[in-house]
């Protein structure tokens, strides 16, 4: 059992010989069982949840039954699937028939989904055991998991610091060894930034690669499900199980999903790494800058070609995002009206339907969700649509074109996932300062390209050693090369 480290001198890196891939193999080899592994994780969940608060609900009985079934099938010589033996946590905005799906919101406090998300069906069909539902920013709106209606999640690397968000609980479950891996969702960086803050790998595939059927919708042209893991090869293994066309999600691509790691890591000597100038600015924490410089030097040392890239629209990404995402959210969240499911305000005498809608929504949604619904409603309203929403969609095309031009010169773009390591709980209460956390991550969602955050080492802040993340971005549907390159850089970073 890996326990969260609070030793400032400890490495942020997981033991490369101890990831989901090796753990699954040890179950297959009969060295341990899924049930034994699960029990130690259930114990870890119980002992850490009062302090870290990674889970909203631990699915103890369901997980035990699944693990026993997986072990029985293995014992009978059957193959329960590539993830047999693994224990995986699930963000609480992904619908499961087991337990509740609350989205970190009072609006869905008692919501039980009548169906499983496609990704849940695929994980179970691949032999995974699902341990529980992880806490998140309410409706995935936040970068710190502080907007969760059930209270904030804490970072195992610094207990008074945020784990990032919105998939904060998923990142903590992996970082604290309570799950081998976790599912998150990423609308503007919500997998990658918490992965960076907690020292995990976080992977957002191309828009359309993974079905969103059963993912509670936030920004439908931006949302993507992906894994948080201990290693790049773990991310590849889960991605391959999840990816591919789904008849229940018309936005899924029917492009074939290839085994990403079949050819092993990428040869660094043939690698062209783009360094976006706009990602290396004075807004970055000095420790982040220093780590990146060392990693770029080690890439040069192994023969990689380093190419300066200009992405002048980087700073327009947040603006574009905070028009498009709230616009889509205001539409998606209009379904929560207290009628068919979810929270309903207590009736008042003489109150009509309209009043019930409004009171239900004001009582059920937290402040950040209400803020974004109003912003989205504003930018979509007559008189403002052209100036804000339409213009943001035009800038989105410019951002996409900027990436297209960059990828004619390089295979991947490398930069920090976040300008800084995990910040203190309560340090960024102003909306804009919170939104700026995602300055390096939102553009991958705007352009729909795949991006991954891998651990970049530790930096020091106020006597605490905190993990940082390196973000790699690649052209749409180039997951295979992105994962292979990430695996190469993952090894290099450990010695940089």
């Amino acid at each position, binding site marked *: 059992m890996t326990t969260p480290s609070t030793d400032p001198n400890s490495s942020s890196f997981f033991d490369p010989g101890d990831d989901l891939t090796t753990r699954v193999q040890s179950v297959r080899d009969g060295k341990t069982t899924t049930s034994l592994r699960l029990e130690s994780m259930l114990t870890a969940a119980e002992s850490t949840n009062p302090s870290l608060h990674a889970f909203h609900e631990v699915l103890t009985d369901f997980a035990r039954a699944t693990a026993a079934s997986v072990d029985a099938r293995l014992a009978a010589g059957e193959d329960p699937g590539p993830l047999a033996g693994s224990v995986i946590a699930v963000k609480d905005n992904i619908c499961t028939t087991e337990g509740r799906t609350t989205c970190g919101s009072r609006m869905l406090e008692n919501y039980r989904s009548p169906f499983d998300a496609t990704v849940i069906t695929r994980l179970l069909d691949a032999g995974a055991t699902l341990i529980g539902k992880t806490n998140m920013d309410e409706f995935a709106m936040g970068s710190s998991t502080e907007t969760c209606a059930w209270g904030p999640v804490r970072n195992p690397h610094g207990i008074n610091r945020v784990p990032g968000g919105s998939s904060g609980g998923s990142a903590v479950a992996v970082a604290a060894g309570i799950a081998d891996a976790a599912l998150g969702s990423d609308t503007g960086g919500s997998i990658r930034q918490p992965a960076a803050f907690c020292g995990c790998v976080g992977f957002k595939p191309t828009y359309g690669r993974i079905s969103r059927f059963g993912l509670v919708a936030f920004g439908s*042209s931006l949302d993507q499900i992906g894994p948080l893991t201990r290693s790049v090869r773990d991310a590849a293994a889960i991605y391959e199980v999840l990816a591919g066309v789904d008849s229940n999600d018309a936005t899924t691509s029917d492009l074939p999903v290839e085994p990403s790691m079949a050819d092993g890591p990428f040869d660094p000597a043939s690698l062209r790494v783009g360094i976006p100038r706009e990602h290396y600015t004075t807004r970055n924490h000095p420790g982040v800058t220093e780590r990146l410089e060392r990693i770029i030097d080690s890439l040069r040392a192994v023969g990689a070609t380093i190419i300066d890239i200009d992405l002048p629209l980087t700073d327009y990404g947040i603006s574009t995002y905070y028009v498009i995402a709230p616009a889509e959210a205001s539409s998606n969240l209009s379904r929560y009206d*207290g009628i068919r*499911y979810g929270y309903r305000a207590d009736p008042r005498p003489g109150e009509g339907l309209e009043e019930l809608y409004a009171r239900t929504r*004001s009582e059920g949604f937290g402040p950040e969700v*209400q803020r974004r619904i109003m912003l989205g409603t504003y930018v979509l309203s007559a008189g403002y649509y052209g*100036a804000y929403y339409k*213009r943001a969609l035009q800038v989105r095309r410019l951002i996409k074109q900027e990436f297209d031009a960059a990828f004619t010169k390089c295979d991947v773009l490398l930069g920090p996932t976040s300008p800084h390591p995990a910040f203190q709980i309560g340090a960024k209460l102003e909306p804009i300062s919170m939104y700026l956390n995602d300055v390096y991550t939102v553009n991958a969602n705007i352009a*729909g390209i795949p991006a991954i955050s891998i651990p970049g080492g530790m930096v020091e802040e106020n006597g605490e050693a905190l993990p940082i993340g390196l973000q790699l971005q690649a052209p749409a549907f180039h997951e295979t090369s992105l994962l292979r390159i990430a695996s190469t850089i993952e090894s290099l970073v450990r010695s940089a």
Partner: protein
Amino acid sequence: MTSSDSNSAPTLADVAKVAALSRLALDPDALDSARGDLLAILQHVANLQTLDVEGVEPMPKPQDTVNRLAEDVPGPSLDRDVLLAMAPKTEGHFIAVPKVLGEGGA
């Protein structure tokens, strides 16, 4: 939205209209606070107005692909009783809601 154009800051009346369109019930303090937040965010996103987007086709999705269409054939669906059980209030086979029409109809 009629009381101001896209170049002027939203007034309290604008924000009240937005809250109504958003189906949110905000008291005067919450409206005032919402106006402050909206102003700060609109000020931040104002840099979009500095870019030349003349002739650029808006991009509602990140890829210029069209959604796949499924054959129009019946398939399994969720049971009515399961769905009704999710409603906060039911009466028989119906979801109960407050009166929709006013006295004498609307």
